[in-house]
């Protein structure tokens, strides 16, 4: 992206005005990305989440605004913008106002290093993945701020839970990145993707059993970092009312949820990038535009697959307790992630070229697991259909 702006400006201006134009261009482009892509995408994710839940819970879900309720997110956003912004008298007003922005900034900043296609990335930082895990931690500052400044014990408990949870799960999440970094030899997001191929056997995920385990660890840890069920303790609505967001209303409260839905995309994008070959597609054409569109589609599909899985998990699983959350992290995930890291290094020393056979075997194993799972899902679907036909719905 930098290069694009550079080339645009190279011919026109020089000196200070060039720098200003450069700044303006970056801000303008940033605003375009935030308002044109990130926020609508977070909103649409909220609609999608509600539809997916509704499907799972045998309800209808939002279906009034736009086709299939597609514009529900816009209506909700408008409604929340128009709502009164209540700030409790006992709250610390400055921090209370600031907190939602910090949370949103934390997740929006992650998009700087997230690739969309081979040539579409805002900035291909050479420390890409490190940068992402650093800026997403900004969210915890915002949440803690919100929890403390609300001057409400429920909020405070939520904030503290969130802080301890995110800080703890940073460790397995970070450790699970190491195997990938070892394999690709770079921290850059594009570099990691380029190290993989389009075929599943070439994905980092199937490089060795350790990377496969790292992949699972990574997803679980990222779910926990994103405050998603079964780790949604900070806002556990049945325990802590709404956790750190209890005292928030209107747009400020919506910003927290926007960050949560946006974070889902970040989680999916990280998974797709690190382990699933990112935007890699077979080179079917020389047309750059077409290829970029295909790459974008591929990346988006992979990302949204993980977003969907997160929604599915949320609609299925209950919430863990805070001590179970911690014991899961420190007693199981951290040691396993450690083993993964050293295991991958060991594999790389023993078979530097990597073993195709192992990759194919792991691929087959995964496929077998998926087929088993699919059959089980099918069985349950059939069974629930049976009772749906047995007792026709009562006349109301």
């Amino acid at each position, binding site marked *: 992206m930098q290069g694009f702006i550079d080339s645009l400006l190279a011919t026109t201006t020089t000196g200070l005005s060039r720098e200003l134009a450069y700044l303006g261009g970056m801000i303008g482009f940033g605003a375009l990305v935030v308002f044109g892509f990130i926020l609508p995408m977070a909103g649409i994710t909220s609609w999608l989440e509600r539809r997916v839940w509704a499907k799972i*819970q045998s309800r209808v879900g939002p279906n009034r605004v736009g086709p299939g309720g597609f514009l529900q997110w816009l209506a909700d956003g408008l409604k929340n913008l128009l709502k009164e912004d209540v700030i409790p008298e006992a709250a610390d007003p400055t921090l209370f106002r600031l907190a939602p922005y910090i949370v949103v900034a934390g997740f929006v900043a992650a998009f700087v290093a997230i690739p969309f296609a081979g040539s579409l990335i805002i900035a291909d930082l050479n420390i890409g993945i490190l940068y992402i895990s650093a800026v997403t931690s900004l969210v915890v500052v915002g949440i803690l701020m919100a929890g403390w400044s609300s001057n409400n014990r429920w909020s405070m408990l939520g904030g503290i839970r969130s802080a301890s949870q995110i800080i703890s799960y940073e460790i397995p999440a970070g450790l699970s990145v190491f195997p990938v970094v070892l394999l690709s030899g770079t921290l850059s997001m594009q570099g990691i993707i380029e190290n993989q191929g389009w075929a599943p056997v070439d994905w980092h995920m199937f490089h060795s059993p350790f990377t496969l385990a790292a992949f699972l660890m990574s997803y679980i840890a990222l779910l926990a970092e994103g405050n998603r069920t079964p780790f949604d303790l900070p806002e556990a609505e*049945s325990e*802590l009312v709404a956790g750190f967001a209890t005292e928030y209303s209107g747009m400020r409260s919506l910003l927290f949820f926007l960050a949560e839905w946006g974070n889902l995309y970040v989680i999916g994008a990280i998974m797709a990038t690190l382990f699933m070959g990112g935007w890699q597609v077979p080179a079917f054409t020389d047309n750059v535009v077409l290829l970029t569109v295909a790459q974008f589609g591929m990346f988006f599909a992979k990302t949204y697959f993980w977003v969907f899985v997160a929604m599915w998990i949320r609609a*299925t699983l209950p*919430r863990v*307790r805070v001590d179970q959350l911690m014991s899961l992290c420190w007693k199981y995930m951290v040691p396993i992630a450690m083993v993964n890291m050293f295991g991958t290094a060991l594999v790389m020393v023993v078979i530097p070229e990597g073993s195709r056979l192992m990759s194919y075997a792991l691929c087959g194993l995964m496929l077998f697991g998926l087929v088993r799972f699919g059959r089980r899902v099918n069985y349950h679907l059939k069974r629930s259909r049976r*009772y*749906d036909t047995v*007792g026709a719905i009562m006349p109301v």
Partner: protein
Amino acid sequence: MSVEIELAGEGGGLATEEMVLNMGPQHPSTHGVLRFIVTADGEVMRRAVPDIGYLHRSIEKIAEKVGWHGFMPYTDRVDYVAAMTANQGWAMCAERLGGIEVPKRGEYCRVIAAELGRACSHLLGFGAMGMDIGAITPFTHALREREMINDLLEELCGARLTFNYLRIGGVAWDLPPGYEEKVLRFLDRFELAVDEMGELLSDNRIWVERLAGVAPVPPAMAMAYGLAGPNLRASGVNYDCRKAHPYSVYNDFEFDVPVGTGEKGELGDCYDRYICRLREIRQSSRIVRQAIEKIPDGPVIAKVPRNFKPRAGDCHVVLESARGEMDWYCASDGTEYPYRVHIKTGSFTAMSIMEALSPGLMIADLVAVIASFDIVAPEVDR
């Protein structure tokens, strides 16, 4: 204001301040208007003191003012989640004092209605419990089935929540034509659906971890604190009022009483209470099936004078409501108004055990414990 901070705590560690949390009266997981004053050290509770009375509608006082027939709709409000059994308690009180024999068909209608109501209530308890632990899907599935039961009960008596179906001496209306087939068709579906809902949670690892071994109530404690119904049976006490002191026509039916065994954790823990309640739904549907099969012909209501005046005296009626043994004490002075009515409900005693159970639990556990006792606030306060 000066604050003194004591730095050395027990065992030489850093002293921490205990936090007093006010859980309720408005809180998402208190199932109505309950309040707990929770003293917590971080996430761990020192104790939780229930404070009740927010839903006190002085139903006992109302009874003294509205007369025997007129009190029936008020009994719905004692426990609006399972209103049929509350209806039945009052009807049984009046009948015992007035020496009224209920026609057989009337009793069967009562059983069908009460058991459907029990299933309804347990479904809500099951769903709400899932919700409280953070599983959102079972709730909607449970409510879907509950809606159908509500439809059935609506067809029976015209109301979906506060039924006012029973009358002193029988029931208000006979079963509508074709009702039996409709109920049987529903039960065919319902039993499969309940099994599926159970599978969704019962063996879920997180669910079991959250409930097993949490707040176990040993049998002696359960009896001492007067726990009732599924809560008592979860502690391993095999006592069901319908079996031990059969009232109405419960003698005619075969059904099992699910008793807790501590299958996943300790005896009488939250999981046992959950699983007992779930299994009871199946037993209710079994009773309804038998009742529909055996229902005799005849009138559904005995002749009761409009100006009903039972003889002076008092009586004590016990029946099995969805939340356990419901004790009705009723005194009459021979006039058209009851002299004194007292209702002791399962939720009331379940609330009273809370303070004894709470020390050492976590705040998240308190939510699970409230849900596992299936406490319904109006029933606590009446």
